């Protein structure tokens, strides 16, 4: 089983290389087509034409586009995405500083989406044929129609402003110090230095943005799981299990769910990519110090090196997650196992 996982993951990672190259080319070319001059924008407004030309040469912007791309790609492979126009710091270091927070948030979101999605899917399935089915169906459609940023605002208002039970700004309470960057992951770092108070505060600050993401992405999982369960219940082995006297609960949780989870898992992998992109607005609403928040700044300031660095990082993370999900899919699906 482990061999299958490793082999498939390795194959997928190899297949991801051309995808990354295509995405990086698109990212580079599209941004270069924008009518902005990164050299001029990198300098103060009083810079002379001569200084701008010198900067253009320094940045390699006077060379042919394919050569520029290769220079950029070579730098990117070494983690050098150039200097951010707005922050005048290395774009790579800005991404590295903010990526862990976004991963932490996205993982929180996908775990919650999974719990809510699977729970909701099972509930929807159990309510089939009852008078509650149309109501449950309507509720799931309603949930599906609310995007993550709206959930963000609703949750902020209800739990932050009205009920006063959860914080909604930043990643940790104002009175607590930030732990040293060991892994960059706040939850992990606070545990590593043995500060449970920081860990608890970081968890509290993670709840609302993660729930906002989870609520936005759970309805899709819910509905796909229910449809898969419907399909699985038409399979012969379900009837046979019934004939053997296996209880409905055991049929659902022990047999049907495992098989119905395969398409759900595939969907969750795809959803993670979308959810990862969804962190952008949620991070702004909750002042969460992640990469999405940084991206908003970068776009607002037409900070091309930073946009490229964040864009490529998003792509790499999504590809990695999909690769891992594919690996798990192979593990769960006996047909794909290597003999």
């Amino acid at each position, binding site marked *: 089983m482990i061999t299958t996982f490793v082999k498939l993951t390795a194959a997928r990672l190899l297949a991801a290389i051309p995808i990354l190259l295509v995405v990086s080319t698109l990212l580079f070319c599209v941004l270069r087509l924008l009518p902005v001059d990164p050299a001029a924008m990198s300098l103060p407004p009083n810079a002379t034409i001569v200084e701008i030309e010198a900067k253009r040469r320094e940045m390699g912007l006077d060379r042919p586009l394919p050569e520029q791309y290769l220079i950029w790609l070579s730098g990117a492979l070494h983690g050098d995405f150039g200097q951010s126009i707005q922050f*005048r710091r290395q774009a790579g270091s800005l991404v590295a500083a903010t990526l862990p927070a976004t991963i932490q948030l996205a993982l929180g979101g996908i775990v919650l989406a999974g719990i809510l999605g699977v729970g909701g899917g099972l509930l929807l399935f159990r309510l089939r044929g009852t008078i509650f089915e149309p109501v449950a169906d309507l509720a799931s459609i309603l949930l599906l129609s609310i995007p993550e940023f709206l959930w963000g605002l609703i949750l902020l208002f209800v739990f932050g402003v009205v009920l006063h039970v959860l914080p909604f700004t930043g990643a940790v309470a*104002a009175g607590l110090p930030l732990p040293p960057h060991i892994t960059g992951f706040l939850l992990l770092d606070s545990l590593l230095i043995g500060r449970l108070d920081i860990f608890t505060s970081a968890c509290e600050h993670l709840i609302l943005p993660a729930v906002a993401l989870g609520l936005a992405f759970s309805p899709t999982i819910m509905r796909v799981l229910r449809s898969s369960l419907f399909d699985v219940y038409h399979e012969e082995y379900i009837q046979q299990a019934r004939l053997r006297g296996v209880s409905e609960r055991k049929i659902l949780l022990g047999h049907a769910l495992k098989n119905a989870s395969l398409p759900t898992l595939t969907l969750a992998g795809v959803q993670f990519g979308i959810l990862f992109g969804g962190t952008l607005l949620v991070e702004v609403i909750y002042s969460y110090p992640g990469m999405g928040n940084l991206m908003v700044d970068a776009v607002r300031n037409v900070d091309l090196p930073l946009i490229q660095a964040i864009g490529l990082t998003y792509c790499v993370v999504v590809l990695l997650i999909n690769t891992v999900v594919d690996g798990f899919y192979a593990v769960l699906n006996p047909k794909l196992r290597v003999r």
Partner: protein
Amino acid sequence: MKFGLPRRTFLGMIAGTAASMSAPFARAAANDAVTIGWPNDVPTWDPNQRFTPDAQSIFKAVFDQPLDQDPDLKLIPSLIKSWNLAPDGLSMAVELRDDVTFHNGDKMTTEDFRYTFFERIKSGPKLDTGNSMKKVQDIVIESPTKALMKFDSPAPTMPQWMAFLGSYVVPKKYIDSEGLDNFVKKPIGSGPYRLAEYELNSRIVLERYDNYWGRKAKIPRVTIQIIKDPSARVAAIQSGQVDCTINVPVREVQRFEKEPGFAAEIDPITRVILIHMRSDLAFADKNVRLAAHHAIDKAALSKAFYGGAAVPLSVLATPGTPGYLTDFTFKYDPELAKKLLAASNFSPANPVKIGFATTNGQFPSDYDIARAVVQMWKAVGIDADLQVIEYAKYFELNRGNKLPEAMLYSWDNATGDPEIFSGYQLNPKMPFSPWKDEDIGNRVLALFNIPDYDKRIAGYRELERYAVENGATVPLLQSVVTLVRKKNLAYTKYANGWLLPQTLQWS
């Protein structure tokens, strides 16, 4: 499997968890701390690098400026005890305090002063202070506390610049030994607070510097929470997660005014909202330019977008500053606008077509103001094609002569000096103005070289009227800053909108 947890114990645990969860943020801070909701992070911790008006209050907490301003914007001593601008404006003698230390304990001397305002500038076009200090030819060190600044041409506003954007003294020895990158990561200044923690786009924690040479800050710990979304800032102050916040929507300020426990204010500041004009294309015609100005109902814009608190302006200066004219009003007169356009063969049926650029979200209601102006222009016979551009692209477009005829713009001048209002906005050799006409351009350039204060101010007052009467600029409104705070949190109000952490105190 059955867990043997009694229901009462279970409910008690939930209640306990809820109580412990709500405790840390039921109140943003105790009396020895304060939390401020701030709309933007600092772009960098090198205070000389970028001119960012919104970051000045934060920089002023960590770094010191050579000169300072009182709440009415009068220049006052700071690191510089005394200064003497030569009558010809070609040099300025300064004497620094001898009791100033940086946060690492190093003494601040003229070496640091020279490094900040001369050596760093000459090292290349990397700092925005290269613009403000471009006239500095040398800084001659006479002693650890005395220096002479030499200029290549008269620099009458150098004292003002010593208290303006980017002019913060940085520690030469520390930067030399640690490197600029490490300085930016762990900056030290000589200000009333030292930077204790910084998390990009999230929060800035300041701790009082007990060896500060000046008046000690009342509150030992200040947390600046970066909250970019205005609705989230409103929610944060409402829920008590922050004690004070700025730049909230005007309607929210009006609501907070009625809420017990809160104080809310809309304060006009030294920031002007204007329309930059080109001197060519369709605006080569003076009638069209003046018609564009007469057609705008500034009071209506103020009422619609700033609750009436933004003061309509007729010149490029704000009330109370030296260049402001109390005896001049450019009237709103759409009929006169139509007559002017008719004289150039334009009418609502046959409108003159122009391009009009605006930012969206760069300052409050910018895009909405631009849309309203388009409608006002349409009513008199000006058909404006509204385009949204990023503020970051403004200078590049202007440098390439690619801006449209008109551009909605906001300009901050914390000093209040007219050179940094109309002087910069109408100087054809500077990157700010698209107005390139020689007549006004030469008048402006001449004013840059007048060292005598009274003559200089008189010249700018004359220029301001002349520029508006010739349609070279369309001043619209004096911008406002909105602030909501807990009622028992006092602060010092500055006419330029600064909210300095060192002035905050609980009552």
